[in-house]
C-alpha cells in the first residue's frame, strides 16, 4: 500500500469508518463546500472608505487621495519628495501609460527586481475591516512589485473598497470563478518583533506602504 492509502486508512480507522464515504455522505459535505456559508461576523457598522483609511494609518501605512487616475503621478511625486525617496521605480503595466515623466518620475512598466526601490501597483480590491489590499497574481499584476521594493505604492479606487475579506473572496468567485496562483492579503509594511518583542517596520518586504485613493 502507498503512504497515501496507509494514511487515509488510518484516518478512516480512527473515525470508525471501514470504507470511503458513500456518495450520499460525500454529497452532504460537498454541499457544505459549495454553499460558502460565512462564519459568524463581528459588527461592522462603519463607513467603508473612512474605516479603510483609518485602519491603513493604524498599520503604519500612509494615505493620500486624488480625484482621478491622471492625478496619481503628481501625488506620487509629492509623496516621494516629501519622504526624501528616489524618483525611479517600476509599476504594473496597466499604469505604464500614466504620465510619470511629466511628474518628474522615471517609472518602468515591468516586474520589480531585487534592487528596485519603488514599486507601484493597483489592487484587486481593498478590505475596510482591516485596512488590507487584496492582490492577485497574474501576467500583468506581478506579486514581486508589492514585495521586493523598499517602498510599495498602491493605487486604490475607492469604488473597490469592500467591507470584509469574505466580500473580497465572493467578488473573486463572481468575477473570476477560480483563484489565481497567489492571492495575497497585504496589510501595511512588513514587520517583525523577533528581537525582544520590539516592533520594527521593514524586514523582508517593504519598509513603507503608501496608499493613493482614487475617488473618481
Amino acid at each position: 500500500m502507498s503512504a497515501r492509502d496507509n494514511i487515509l486508512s488510518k484516518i478512516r480507522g480512527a473515525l470508525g469508518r471501514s470504507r470511503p464515504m458513500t456518495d450520499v455522505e460525500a454529497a452532504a459535505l460537498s454541499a457544505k463546500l459549495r454553499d460558502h456559508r460565512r462564519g459568524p461576523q463581528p459588527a461592522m457598522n462603519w463607513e467603508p472608505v473612512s474605516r479603510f483609511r483609518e485602519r491603513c494609518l493604524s498599520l503604519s501605512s500612509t494615505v493620500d487621495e486624488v480625484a482621478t487616475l491622471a492625478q496619481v503621478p503628481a501625488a506620487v511625486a509629492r509623496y516621494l519628495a516629501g519622504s526624501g525617496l528616489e524618483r525611479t521605480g517600476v509599476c504594473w503595466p496597466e499604469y505604464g501609460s500614466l504620465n510619470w515623466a511629466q511628474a518628474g518620475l522615471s517609472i518602468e512598466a515591468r516586474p520589480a527586481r531585487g534592487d528596485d526601490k519603488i514599486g507601484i501597483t493597483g489592487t484587486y480590491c481593498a478590505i475596510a475591516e482591516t485596512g488590507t489590499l487584496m492582490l492577485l497574481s497574474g501576467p500583468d499584476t506581478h506579486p514581486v512589485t508589492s514585495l521586493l521594493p523598499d517602498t510599495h505604492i498602491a493605487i486604490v479606487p475607492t469604488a473597490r473598497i469592500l467591507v470584509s475579506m469574505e466580500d473580497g473572496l465572493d467578488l473573486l468567485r463572481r468575477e473570476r470563478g477560480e483563484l489565481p496562483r497567489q492571492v495575497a492579503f497585504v496589510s501595511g509594511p512588513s514587520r517583525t518583533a523577533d528581537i525582544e518583542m520590539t516592533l520594527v517596520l521593514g524586514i523582508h518586504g517593504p519598509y513603507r506602504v503608501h496608499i493613493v485613493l482614487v475617488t473618481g
Partner: protein
Amino acid sequence: MQVQSEKFKAGAAKSLNNPHLLKAMANLRHRMVTGRAKSILELDNFEEIREAARATRDLSLANLDYLLEEFERNATARGTKVHWAETGKDVNQLVLDIARSNNVRKIIKSKSMLGEESGLNHFLQGAGIEVRETDLGEYIIQEAGETPSHIIAPAIHRTKDEVSDLFHEKHKLPRKTDIAEMTREARMILRPYFLSADMGISGANFLVAETGTTMIVTNEGNGRMTTTLPRVHVAIVGIEKVLPTLEDVAFILRLLTRSATGQSISNYLTFTTGPKQTGDQDGPDEFHVIIVDAGRSKVLDSDLREALRCIRCGACMNHCPVYQNIGGHPYGWVYPGPIGSVLTPAFVGIENAIDLPNAATLCNQCGVVCPVKIPLPDLMRKLREKQVERGLRPRPERLGLKVWAWFAVRPALYGGITRIAARLGHWAGGRAGLIHSLLGGAGWTRDRDLPAPQGRTFRELYAARAKRRA
C-alpha cells in the same frame, strides 16, 4: 528533532537561574498577553466566533479523509504535485528527492514546525544542500545553533545584546545595538538568498479543501517571498490542517492573529493555488505539497483528539505561568507550553515526556484563551492518568500512593493518623505557624515556608457539624 523532554526538570532549573532568559521572557508577558486582551475587544461576538471555530475544526477532523482527498483532487487539477508522508523521515526523503530531481543547491525556508519535528534542515545540510531560515527569529536561532523556544516567536529567549553579539560574530560587520539597525542588517544579509535560492520550503497554516489551496500567515514577508521567488516551492503540512472552505479560513483568521500576537490581521496572508500559470512572470515552475501524518492519525484515534484542533497561535504558552518563567527549551521538543505538554507525549510517546503533563498547575489559563477551545488541562489530566495506569510514575511516588491508599480505605485509622499529624504539624509550626523545613520535602521548603495545620482536621470539623445538626 531529538526528544529531550526527559530532562525537563534540569532544564527548568537552568532557565530559572538564567537572568537573560527571565528578562527576555518578561517581554512576552507584557506584549503578547496585553496585546491579545486588547485586540479581542474589537470583536463584539468573540465567544460566538470562538464556538464556531471549534465546531468547524471538529467538523474538519471528523471528515478528514474526505477533505484531504478533496484537497488533493482540487490541488492536482491546478498542477500542484501532492505527496503523502507517514513519518518525519519520509518527509525528509521526499523533500530531498524533489530537490535532487531539480538540481537544487540552495534552499530558503519560511518557518515550519513540522520541519522542526523531522529535523529537515539538518538532514538536507547533511546531503550537501544549503538551507537558510528566513524568518528573523528562525534565522537567529539557526545561526546560534539552537532550537525554537516558541512556535511563533522562536528567539523569544534571546536578549538584544545576545543577538547583537551573534550578528557581530556571524556577519563580520561593525557591532550594532539598535534593534531597527540589527533588523536592517539581517534584511541585507538575507535578501541575496531570496533572490538566488533554487527552492523554497514553507509550512502552511491551513489547507483549503474546496480550492486545493495552501495558505500561510506571516508578518515579515518571507513567506510570500519563499512561495514566489524560487523555481520550486515545497509546502509541508500536517493532515489536521485542512479546512473545508475559504470562508472558514477567513473567519478563523480573526481569531488566529489576535490570539497569536494581538494583531487585527497579520501583514501577509498568502493563498497559493498551483504553480506559475500561463503568462505569469513570477512564481515557481513546480509546486509540491507534502501531506504529513507523523503521529497525527494516532492522536485522532485517541482521547486526545481535541488537541488536533490546534491552529498554532501560541496563546496557551503566552498565558502559561510555567512557560512564562522557564521558556520553551526545557519542554525538550518542538512544541512547548500547554499544547506541547499534550502533543509531545502524544507524538513521541508518553514514556518519553513524563514530566510535561505534570508541568502545569491546571490553572486553565490556556483553556480560557485557546481560540478553538482545546480543553488543555483535561488532556493533561488524561495523560497523567495514563502514566499511572501504565506504571510510568517514579517508584517513590507509586509506593507513597500505595501507602496512602492502604490507610485511606481504613477510615478510623486514617482519621486517627491525620489527627495526630495535624497536631504534630501545628506544634512544628511554632508560634509563627510556619514549617521551615519538611522531612523528605526539602526541595519544597527551600524557597518558601509551609503553613502549619491550624485547629482540627476536616473530618473532625465535619463530624462536629453533623452532630450539631442532628
